[in-house]
């Protein structure tokens, strides 16, 4: 599902974030991405989401070679990847409902289908009663769950998360991770960047450890 083959990423300032990275994630797998800060975790996720492009090497996601993807196809490609961020990236002038509905509005779903799917996603993350609230009225953990609902509302086959529990206390972090597990159980490929060692060491999933832009031995 996620296939890196000798991938290099060098930024314009000559900093080499990834140096010949190769790894493979199966369809339906759940894995953690760890490593010290600056090891290249964010860069790796950006390459998968096509926020950045690799300098050398192949990134193949769901049988699509990202190096060959023209610019105009990028939005359609991104619709099959759910993204969860540390700082949630919610729109603060819109209600919880409107935030979660955004990917469906973009892909042109009809009104009834949007209502149904948004409520299903909010139900899944336990926020069904708060659809009319503005994000600012929610706690940090609740905002993160809105972000997760938005990421899964159009049922993408891949879910990427960048430090999703970075700002949360251990108990809330545990709940968020359980949510990710539930999505994985229905077949979604889940890839989570995290440095929360206590949390991920208690979970039975593969860990991809980066060190200076390479896989750690």
């Amino acid at each position, binding site marked *: 599902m996620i296939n890196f083959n000798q991938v290099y990423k060098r930024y314009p300032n000559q900093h080499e974030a990834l140096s010949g990275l190769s790894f493979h994630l199966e369809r339906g797998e759940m894995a953690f991405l760890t490593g010290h800060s600056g090891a290249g975790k964010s860069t790796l996720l950006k390459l998968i989401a096509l926020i950045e492009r690799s300098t050398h090497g192949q990134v193949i996601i769901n049988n699509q070679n990202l190096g060959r993807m023209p610019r105009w196809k990028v939005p359609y490609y991104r619709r099959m990847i759910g993204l969860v961020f540390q700082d949630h990236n919610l729109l603060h002038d819109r209600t919880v409902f409107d935030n979660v509905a955004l990917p469906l509005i973009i892909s042109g779903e*009809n009104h009834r289908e949007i209502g149904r799917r948004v409520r299903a996603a909010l139900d899944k993350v336990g926020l069904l009663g708060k659809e009319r609230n503005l994000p600012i009225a929610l706690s940090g953990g609740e905002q993160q769950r809105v972000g997760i609902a938005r990421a899964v509302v159009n049922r993408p086959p891949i879910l990427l998360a960048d430090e999703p529990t970075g700002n949360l206390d251990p108990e809330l972090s545990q709940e968020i991770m359980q949510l990710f597990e539930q999505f994985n159980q229905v077949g979604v490929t889940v890839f989570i960047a995290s440095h929360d060692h206590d949390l991920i060491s208690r979970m039975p999933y593969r860990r991809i450890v980066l060190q200076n832009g390479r896989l750690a031995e």
Partner: protein
Amino acid sequence: MDIVDRFKNYLLRHVQVMLASLGDLWRHPLASIMTIVVIGIALALPAGLLVMLTNVAQISGQWQDSHQISLFLNDEVGDTRGQQLAEQLLSWPDISAVEFKSSSESLEEFRELSGLGSMLDNLPKNPLPAVIIVQAADDFSETENIEDLLERLARMQDIELAQLDMQWLQRLRSLNQTAQRAVQILAALLSISVLLVIGNTIRLSILNRQAEIRVIKLVGGTNAFVRRPFLYTGFWYGFLGGVVAWLTLLTSLAVISGPINALASQYDNVFSLQWLAGELFLALPLIGVLLGVLGAWLAVGKHLNAIEPN
């Protein structure tokens, strides 16, 4: 989803975005009104001048086919001799009509039109000459023939001055053409300024919504999706600016129509103010919309690609 459903959703989405952009303008009434009024004035100015010129052209057009020559007679020519001369001229094949006005008739007419009655009474003698107004025959429409006739008349013994009344009209027409050209240039410049005003307004609103644009792009929004609300914002600015221009123009014409009608009544109402209200009601919002959407398109095109998720 079948194709009909997709198309319906697409149209519905357009209507939603259209109304939402109007709602956005409504939420910042002061800023919106200022922009709209600026656009309205910029559109009203050339349109107003165009209405003026159209009216002038219409007035001068009424005399388009008249070839009228005024013959001013020598002072010593008496009324009887004048009458005879007029009748003699009528027999010329290239003259279709004549009218003799004695010097006292001319004075009477001048007194009426000028309103200088009592002042004229104080003059020791009538300064106005007797006049024969000659209408050239219709088939003498070409300028050379008219000039020819004019020359023959001017050479006659009793005639002090033969003047083609078309001359001032021709001058008026070329003046009008010059003014029209000037208005076209002004309209082009003001259109550019409308483009810039709208472009700049849209640019600010893009900068205000950078975070939102990034999020939309991250969850798979196309450039067209990001562009759409800004294009509709430009649409509304242009449309409302056009309506404001129309209202401004009608108000100005209403103010000016009183004096103009009074002026017209002194000329036997040979002309009346043409408002062109219907034409402008179609044209001004349409031009506004074109400029608005184009200005928004230019602004979005310039900034859209610069805002990428990072």
